[in-house]
């Protein structure tokens, strides 16, 4: 097993872990952590799988750089919303009933 494939497999596990976290965790700050873990997993798969023959490939590497910046933008936005919600309601969770 090459390093690329090994880390791609780690990426798959991280993605599944993060996705399960986003689905199951109610606390919004923790859910943001889970989303970031999920994203990191996808990035590892992108580079790891492309480099499974051991040759460095700058194309997926550049894509991941783009992805990291997009992820931090999304994280900052999510944090702003969470902090706003907390200021307005004092809660860091979304209400259960959403069919209202």
């Amino acid at each position, binding site marked *: 097993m090459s390093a690329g*494939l090994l880390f*791609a*497999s780690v990426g*798959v*596990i991280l993605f*599944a*872990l993060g*996705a*399960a976290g986003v*689905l*199951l965790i109610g606390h919004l700050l923790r859910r943001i952590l889970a989303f970031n873990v999920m994203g990191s997993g996808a990035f590892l798969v992108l580079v790891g*799988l*492309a480099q*499974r*023959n051991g*040759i*460095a*490939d*700058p*194309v997926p*590497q*550049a*894509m991941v*750089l*783009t992805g990291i*910046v*997009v992820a*931090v*933008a*999304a994280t*900052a*936005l999510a*944090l*702003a*919303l969470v*902090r*706003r919600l907390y*200021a*307005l309601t004092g809660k860091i969770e979304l209400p259960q009933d959403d069919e209202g």
Partner: protein
Amino acid sequence: MKRLLVVLGAACFVVLLIGAMLDLAPAGIALHAAVSANLPSSGVEHPVTAVLLNFRGYDTLLEIAVLLLALIVILAVGIDSTTDVRPAASPVLQALARLAAPLMIVVAVYLLWAGAFRPGGAFQAGAVLAAAAVLLHLAELLPGWQSPGARLRLGLAGGFLIFLAVGAGLLFQGALLEYPPEQAGWMILLIESGLTVSLGLILAGLFLLLSRDDGDRS
């Protein structure tokens, strides 16, 4: 019940997907070869920078738009402006920040310049600039932002606008972001310099806007 289902689903997904990855035949297309072949006409020597700012520069253009957009959304959502008190910064931290900040600016300039040949470039340089701003903020030498004034807004959007202007200007004599090979070098450096400043400001802004309730304390 939901918990069990999700965990089981995730486990099956992991097993299936890793199994499928192990079975995979080599890819038919090797883009890294195409990158190496076209590197001489890209204007930079570092392949990742060439992909980021030339071959797939359009991705990067949109990505800067996403970053700028996130900052505007944070401004539009508005954070509560209630003041609260955080422990005062220690004099040691302040002295350290005064020393480190200029050093970090030098590192940023180096990273920007080095990006043409080796790992580095506008993103890393911008991140270092942002880190310097955050450090100064934590040492209470730089207040949090309330609402950015006209000059600051120009700084935030300037890098993106330079990128957009160069891309659009090139459209008139060819395709979007189609640099003439002999001029690609300085055009990319121009874009990257603008981006470094704007990325530094935006990334710092993400932090300074979110913690702006500390700004008007003193």
